[in-house]
């Protein structure tokens, strides 16, 4: 019995307590910067991406002056577009983000603000 305890004491690995803070945690996080999440429901667009793409679509519209486009611009009041141009812009946004917007909702999208909010809150925005 005492022999067993002596043998165990001999081969037991001494426990070392690590320093509480130090460069170690940072090193770990910097190694896994690009974390791959394996769920299929976490790839929602970030707000900056949505804003960038929406502004690109609006700027590439031929009747629009690209220098006037900001995230808060109103299509008919600020950019001087027609209501039919509004419809065309909404269709272009639908094609860009692979969405299907119902007719009633699409009628209400009047400015960049509304478009960005709608697309950001849509679960299937691609």
């Amino acid at each position, binding site marked *: 019995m005492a022999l067993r305890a002596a043998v165990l004491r001999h081969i037991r690995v001494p426990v070392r307590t690590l320093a509480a803070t130090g460069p170690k945690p940072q090193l770990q996080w910097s190694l896994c910067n690009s974390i791959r999440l394996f769920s299929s429901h976490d790839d929602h667009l970030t707000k900056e991406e949505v804003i960038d793409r929406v502004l690109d679509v609006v700027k590439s519209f031929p009747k629009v002056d690209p220098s006037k486009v900001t995230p808060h611009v109103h299509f008919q009041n600020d950019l001087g577009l027609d209501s039919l141009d509004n419809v065309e812009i*909404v*269709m272009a946004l639908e094609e860009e983000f692979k969405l*299907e917007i119902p*007719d009633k909702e699409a*009628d209400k999208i009047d400015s960049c603000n509304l478009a960005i909010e709608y697309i950001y809150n849509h679960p299937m925005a691609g």
Partner: protein
Amino acid sequence: MSGATTAAYLARRAAQKERVRILYRRALKDTLNWAVHRHLFYQDASDLREKFEANKRVEDLDTIDRMIADGEASYNKWRHPDPYIVPWAPGGSKFTRNPVPPSGIEIVYDYGREDND
């Protein structure tokens, strides 16, 4: 003209404008369905826009109503039999493909332990 800016007149004009916008939207989508190649679509879309622009300045309510009805009739006549619908939308190919399972159901994987215990 009597009732030039009454509320009823304005409401009717607003309803007509909404009908025109929805009709233009559907006609544009239909044009995209028919004209698969992009350069053909641009040509057809600008033709459609010309047709809408030509009637822009009409003021008489009944004429406008008749023109909208004619436009909707010709839209119904030219509808594509197999339109492109986004897959996850109703009518698309992925719609209700993987429905959410009913809540409260729990699958307990015992791997035969309940039979062979």
